[in-house]
């Protein structure tokens, strides 16, 4: 008899980055690296579990922007090009390292890895990552939930509930478009919650969402079972609390598993180490050094990096999977001893941690899921939806405002470096709603196109990623430009609408460039 349940939730998200106006674009590599290093390995792992009959239960968020990119033909072509280049570069590396047996073995490892990934991506799933995940959902291995349309940070839209509503409803629309069913749950971007969101979720027929632990613990009334049970919000949807203990073991920069010296070092990429002329034989020089995905060193634990040893790394992954398992067993045994319920531990992670940032993450996950299935009987793997189905009676708690950002509230996304964006985002949201209301009965195709594109530009400007990147200083120039570009385009389209002009120039250019959510419903802004 199990003493409790564990739900792992992997949040797969990337902001919309698509630049048809450039043949090569550095930031598009974010998607291609994630396909190679995270999505393909996780799909391969989950498919093996289906074949081997392993009773795996995982929850995934596939955000609407990520799905839109994964389904976009231009980006699919470029992802395939990226994999082909990896194969070509690995072949060059095999030649270059002919006199160094250890390095040569690693080069061959990468050739095999790129080749397998290409084979899987192009032939087995016909470049349809979203479809492959949908198939796994249909087979009951994973549950996929939705997210706000462009990962907008909802608490900072509180003054414009129509904007929150549109983010959520369009997120649900896109989910239906991709997965052919209604989403049961939603991942609120950055776990950002303010009272009132629960009402919009209820309206969108969402059954559950997640907040950070303090969002529940400071809830009203105090939750009886802390974060180890879901609760119903006053508006209806259930709320789950994020378990920090299990997260810390994986996330912590200092103590987390991914920092083990045996694991592959993320930063030592041959794209930064080798001469540009050599690399340009395969990867065109775009004026920036770019990662190739070929990394020969392990973290080592010192400035001097030693060569990666795959065997050692897999040994560490096995050891960490066992450790994570034992800790969950102990945690759930302890919870069961003090709580009169079937305790649930919900551990959310960014999906891209597994494989992209932590190269051996998929192997860790594979080993953990196998051990959880066969080597213990303390807990069972579940999903929030399944847990709710078995526990229909819950305490009612109104969660408090919270996020999973630094210090638990909004300061990552509202800071001196990024606060300038909000008056403009709010004014655009106000204009969007005003324009939608003014034209709600329109049947004019041009007006409909304008309003759809205005919605796309506003949604894209609202991505929490831009404020986050401005705050962290990573790609902040790009993030700033993206914010400005989308607001500029929104305002230009608004001007066209207000002027009653039929000028196609701007609209057509925006439609060509920002072509996500083809059927976006602008009336959600009413």
């Amino acid at each position, binding site marked *: 008899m199990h003493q409790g349940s564990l739900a792992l939730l992997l949040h797969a998200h990337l902001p919309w980055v698509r630049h048809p106006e*450039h043949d090569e674009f550095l930031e598009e590599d974010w998607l291609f690296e994630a396909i190679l290093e995270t999505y393909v390995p996780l799909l391969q792992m989950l498919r093996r579990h289906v074949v081997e009959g392993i009773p795996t239960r995982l929850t995934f968020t596939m955000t609407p922007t990520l799905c839109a990119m994964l389904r976009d033909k231009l980006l699919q072509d470029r992802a395939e090009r990226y994999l082909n280049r990896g194969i070509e570069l690995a072949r060059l590396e095999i030649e270059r390292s002919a006199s160094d047996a250890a390095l040569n073995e690693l080069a061959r490892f990468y050739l095999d890895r790129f080749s397998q990934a290409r084979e899987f991506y192009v032939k087995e799933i016909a470049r349809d990552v979203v479809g492959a995940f949908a198939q796994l959902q249909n087979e009951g291995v994973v549950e996929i939930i939705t997210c706000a349309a462009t990962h907008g940070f909802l608490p900072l839209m509180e003054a414009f509930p129509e904007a929150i509503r549109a983010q959520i409803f369009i997120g649900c629309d896109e989910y239906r478009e991709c997965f052919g069913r209604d989403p049961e749950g939603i991942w609120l971007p950055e776990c950002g919650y303010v009272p009132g969101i629960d009402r919009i979720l209820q309206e969108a027929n969402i059954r559950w969402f997640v907040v950070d632990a303090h969002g529940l613990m400071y809830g009203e009334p105090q939750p009886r079972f802390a974060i180890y049970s879901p609760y119903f919000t006053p508006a209806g949807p259930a709320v789950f609390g994020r378990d920090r203990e299990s997260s810390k073991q994986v996330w912590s920069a200092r103590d987390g598993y991914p920092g083990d010296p045996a694991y592959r070092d993320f930063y030592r990429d041959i794209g930064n180490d080798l001469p540009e002329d050599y690399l340009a034989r395969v990867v065109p020089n775009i004026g920036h050094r770019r990662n190739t995905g070929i990394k020969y060193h392990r973290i080592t634990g010192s400035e001097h990096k030693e060569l990666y040893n795959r065997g050692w790394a897999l040994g560490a992954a096995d050891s960490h999977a066992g450790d994570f398992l034992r800790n969950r067993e102990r945690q759930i045994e302890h919870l069961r001893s003090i709580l009169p319920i079937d305790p649930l531990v919900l551990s959310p992670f960014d999906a891209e941690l597994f494989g992209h940032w932590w190269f051996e993450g998929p192997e860790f996950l594979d080993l953990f899921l196998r051990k959880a299935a066969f080597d213990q009987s303390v807990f069972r793997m579940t999903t929030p939806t399944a847990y709710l189905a078995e526990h229909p009676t819950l305490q009612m708690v109104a969660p408090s405002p919270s996020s999973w950002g630094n210090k638990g509230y909004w300061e990552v996304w*509202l800071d*001196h470096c990024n*606060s*300038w964006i909000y*008056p403009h985002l709010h*004014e655009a949201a106000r204009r969007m709603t005003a324009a939608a209301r003014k034209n709600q009965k329109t049947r004019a195709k041009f007006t409909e196109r304008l309003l759809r594109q205005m919605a796309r530009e506003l949604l894209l400007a609202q991505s929490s990623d831009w404020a986050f990147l401005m705050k962290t200083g990573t790609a902040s120039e790009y993030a700033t430009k993206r914010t400005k570009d989308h607001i500029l385009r929104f305002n230009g389209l608004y001007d066209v609408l207000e002027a009653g002009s039929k000028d196609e120039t701007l609209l057509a*250019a925006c439609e060509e460039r920002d072509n996500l959510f083809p059927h976006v419903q602008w009336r959600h802004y009413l």
Partner: protein
Amino acid sequence: MEALPLSGGIRFLAALACSLAMATAADQPIAFAIPETGRITLGVFDNGGHLVRVLHRLAPETEFRFGLNGLISKWDGCDGGGKPLPAGRYYVRGYLVGDVAVSGEEFLFNDWISSPENPQILKIRDFALQGPSDVFLLADVVGGQRVVARYSAEKGFMWQVSLPASEKSARVLLENSNVVVTEDQRRISFDAASGENRGETSEQIVASPVEITREGTRRLGVGDGKLFLSEGSGEFSAVDVPVPVIAADFGRENTTWFVGRDGDTSFVGQLDASGQLLRSLRPEATEWPPVLVRTARADDVFAVLDESPAGQRLRVLSRTPENTWAIDWARSKSNVEEFGFLGDRPVPAGADAPVTELEFRLEENPLTGTKSTIRLHAVSDANGTRIETPDGLPIADVSSLTDTIRTAIHRDKEPDSLRVLCSNGAVVEEFSVNGIRHVLPIDAGEIQLP
């Protein structure tokens, strides 16, 4: 990535600011949106468009509180002097100053100055020469002070000591390891190597001839246009020089260098031990005439200070193997009361008619596509020199040089750049201000002061 074309600009920021900042009483918050990050200049204007208060002067965003409604400031209803202003409607506007770069280009028309720390020499009163490369200067500097300083041709200023202003005649002498400034009956000694004050003594000074220098028991004096020599403890006796003498110094092998007046001009001459003229070095007609000569006793080196209404020049000359005299190094200082631009070129005098204001096209607002222009001029006061709009909002601090007597601006080759000249009378500093297009207007709305 290029911006997409826009149809028609709108006053997005203005509308936004009005909706954000309808404060109705003094000391109420002013919230305003900025279209990107940068430094912020913000002022309050009255109904007549006059600037009544600068609220923020090129302030970084970190000086502001911030919120979802933008950056937050406040106004206490007073003008810049702290005086409460009458009730009425006031307007808050300013500029977001982005990547506008100010770079110091050059110190012009005064070779003595290569950094703001150097003595701001207006006029050299006297000097002494040590070897071929070092001089000790006694000079008037900006601020009504005088300075005694050691200058090396290779290393620049080694030390400088300020002295109180004085109208009295003073000289600087090199005596052994000391530099001595004499004035009236005072003798102030400084260590020649470090500038350390070695104390002050008094000495009876003969009114005329004025003793210029001494070497052992020999003394040299100049007075009433004549040159005087004294050997041992004897009295001064006049040396027969066919022209009036205005300055002199001992040279090597008992020779004497002097500056003689010849009609409207002057020249440098050298006498042998018997008083015979060995050589005379006459300036070209276009050159500034010499007024002082000083020698380095141990070397065949002497220095001449030339002077004209246009400025001063100090030349150090040495004997060449061909037995001629060549300039080793020279430093000049032009009078700059009427500096400006002649075409593209800064000149100390004879400039084109000054430009008072320049207009620049600004880059379009990145969020609305709105295009605008800005007019700028240069202003100097006790805080230095800056570029301002005609209504008094600062856009870029240019120079921290105080005592500025004059500025000039000129459009640079780049379309969004200008050059600024400013001077304290000693030197003209040249600055480039680039990237002016990265300035964006901010409209922070209105305030109804009760």
